[in-house]
């Protein structure tokens, strides 16, 4: 029964996507939404049933298996399409379907008067299906299918409003940059397949745990890391994420905050014995996480576009997850992934509600004083911002970030200091955004109301963003360890906790950040202009990685392409075309259109034929 539910959870949104694409936009908005959100809701329901069954009576081997079919069987290599439900994919499944369902509901309120709504919901449900394949796969090759599936849906949805060339350019950029990582991931998979003869995850992990890592395992780990880095928008392949905000806001909430960008974290957590056996790769993960965390937080401090603030914040928070992975605090990374999905989806959806009501403006300096006009959205945004900043005790973000800080302390106190600096910056930038948007003088008069379909998901996620962290608490507060107990069969026992003053530091630093933000941007002395010195401009442009890649890669490539535009191969085909065209023009001149001339040609031809025939 349970093993049957597993493929059904994937099939439900997949079928809905097929139906929606087949309708080709001829379906009215309401049924479109019912199919889109309903299918994801149905899989959320089945996921909840499956999860309760799983938690009440854990299956004998600690995981449920459902083999669908055998994909290929050749000498020395075979691979199956098979789904596995273990504690890690259980957590991911609940996040993807639960948050996905709330965002689909919200998307109806956000998109219901868009002519392309069928295409939108088709892509969104297809995305959920692909993400579930990614999460459930017990074989790296079928995981790769889901990995590419979410990539293509991301591309389609970033460029959803495709009449604007800027959106299309952003979509193409996201696709190409993540494709670089995908290529690395595929190379890593092939290397693993040749080394182990299988891509079955348990078998691979068994080999990684028993056999010492050789060169091919190290290379494979680094290649897989490349794939994870591109998908999760980490330095140096992070440049696509801020541009990806060109898509509709529900897309940013679902794909570019809650689920797809955390696929890299999931991949590393899933293959953690492989990474743990290669210390260099672990160090690389840590450094990438720390660098991204600090750079992105610095960029978020000076952005003026509300969605870009949240995009940089997403990069920064995923940097925390990478830091936790690199430090070996696997549970902390997954915990932060879950709470981040709650509060970042909430922040994006609240930002979308604001954008919709201030005439599609996204510049925070054009907003202001909105707290009185939209108190509900303000409370939701406040809950999300508090969770993101990690304000102590009340919010989910506090507990998950605290766990990461503890892990970083155990790995190296320097990492802990960096992460703490990041937490300080996080509190500053998100409360800067909050103070500028909701307090002070009003610059744009909001119109309309936020509909019920948008308000309901906001309320649900606001509750989750505040209370979602209570499933895991430090011993000093309350000995609750639901998540680490659930995940311990996979990841082993959680790390012991550090001294209590760590907890104090972790609680006081975000409060200090909020205080600094209040001093700088409180309503009375609010500076209503973005900072304009050289450093701020550099940070606003995302530390100019785009320019660097332009100079290093894109320009040489384009120049090379232009030089080779008329090489010998092109000349050959061009010459053939030119000959055919000239011949056609010559023969075409004979077709004067005059009947008498045609008759003359016929007569002349007959005479010639007769002469030739008469000659003995």
């Amino acid at each position, binding site marked *: 029964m349970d093993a049957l539910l597993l493929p059904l959870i994937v099939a439900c949104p997949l079928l809905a996507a097929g139906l929606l694409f087949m309708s080709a936009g001829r379906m009215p908005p309401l049924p479109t939404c019912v199919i889109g959100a309903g299918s994801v809701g149905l899989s959320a329901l089945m996921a909840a049933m499956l999860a309760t069954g799983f938690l009440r009576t854990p299956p004998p081997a600690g995981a449920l298996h459902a083999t669908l079919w055998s994909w290929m069987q050749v000498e020395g290599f075979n691979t199956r399409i098979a789904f596995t439900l273990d504690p890690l994919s259980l957590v991911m499944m609940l996040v993807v379907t639960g948050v996905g369902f709330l965002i689909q509901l919200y998307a109806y309120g956000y998109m219901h008067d868009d002519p392309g709504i069928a295409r939108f919901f088709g892509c969104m449900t297809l995305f959920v299906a692909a993400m579930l394949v990614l999460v459930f796969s017990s074989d790296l090759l079928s995981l790769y299918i889901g990995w590419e599936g979410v990539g293509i849906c991301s591309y389609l949805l970033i460029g959803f409003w495709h009449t604007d060339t800027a959106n299309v350019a952003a979509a193409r950029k996201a696709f190409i940059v993540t494709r670089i990582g995908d290529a690395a991931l595929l190379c890593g998979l092939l290397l693993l397949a040749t080394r182990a003869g299988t891509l079955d995850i348990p078998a691979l992990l068994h080999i990684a745990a028993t056999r010492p890592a050789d060169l091919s395992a190290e290379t494979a780990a680094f290649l897989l890391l490349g794939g994870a880095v591109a998908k999760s928008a980490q330095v140096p392949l992070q440049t696509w994420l801020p541009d990806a905000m060109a898509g509709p806001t529900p897309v940013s909430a679902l794909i570019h905050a809650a689920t797809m960008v955390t696929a890299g974290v999931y991949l590393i957590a899933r293959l953690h014995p492989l990474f743990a056996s290669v210390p260099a790769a672990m160090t690389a993960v840590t450094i990438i996480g720390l660098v991204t965390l600090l750079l992105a937080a610095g960029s978020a401090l000076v952005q003026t576009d509300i969605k870009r603030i949240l995009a940089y914040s997403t990069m920064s928070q995923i940097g925390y997850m990478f830091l936790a992975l690199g430090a070996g605090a696997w549970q902390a990374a997954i915990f932060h992934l879950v709470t981040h999905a709650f509060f970042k989806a909430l922040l994006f959806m609240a930002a979308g509600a604001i954008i919709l009501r201030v005439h599609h403006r996204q510049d925070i300096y054009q907003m202001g004083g909105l707290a009185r006009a939209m108190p509900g959205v303000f409370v939701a945004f406040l809950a999300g911002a508090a969770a993101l900043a990690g304000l102590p005790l009340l919010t989910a973000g506090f507990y998950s970030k605290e766990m990461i800080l503890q892990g970083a302390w155990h790995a190296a106190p320097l990492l802990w200091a960096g992460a703490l600096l990041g937490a300080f910056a996080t509190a500053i930038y998100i409360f800067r955004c909050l103070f500028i948007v909701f307090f002070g003088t009003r610059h744009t008069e909001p119109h309309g109301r936020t509909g019920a379909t948008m308000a309901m998901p906001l309320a649900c996620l606001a509750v989750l963003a505040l209370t979602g962290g209570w499933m895991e608490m430090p011993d000093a507060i309350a000995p609750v360890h639901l998540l680490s107990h659930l995940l311990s069969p996979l990841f082993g026992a959680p790390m012991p906790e550090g001294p209590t003053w760590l907890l104090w530091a972790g609680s006081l630093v975000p409060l200090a950040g909020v205080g600094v933000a209040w001093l700088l941007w409180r309503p009375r002395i609010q500076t209503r202009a973005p900072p304009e010195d050289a450093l701020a401009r550099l940070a606003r442009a995302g530390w100019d990685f785009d320019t660097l890649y332009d100079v290093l890669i894109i320009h040489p490539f384009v120049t090379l392409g232009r030089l080779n535009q008329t090489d010998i191969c092109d000349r050959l085909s061009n010459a053939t075309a030119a000959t055919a065209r000239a011949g056609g023009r010559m*023969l*075409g*001149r*004979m*077709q*004067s*259109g*005059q*009947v*008498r001339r045609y*008759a*003359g040609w016929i*007569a002349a031809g007959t005479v010639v034929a007769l002469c030739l025939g008469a000659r003995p």
Partner: protein
Amino acid sequence: MNATSPTQALLLATILFTIGMLGVLARRNLLLMLMSIEIMLNAAALAFIAAGARWHAAQGQVMFLMILSLAAAEAAVGLAIILRLHAAGRPTLDADTGNRLKG
């Protein structure tokens, strides 16, 4: 029937054919072109008659009857086309102006 030699009849047919062909090539009036084509057909028919007389075979006259009916059909089709062109608003019978299929 005077025993006109087939050579003379064939010569007449050739002259008639050439006249008809020159008419088709030189005239620009569509009606006159049609008439020239009739002359050419009759020249061919005359050649069949001459050949039939020479070998005392009935097929020559059979072919003549067939060409006669063909000529009638051709004239009907040709005249119908000319009438259609006129009805479609062409003010002229000049064949050279109908050159829209120029390459």
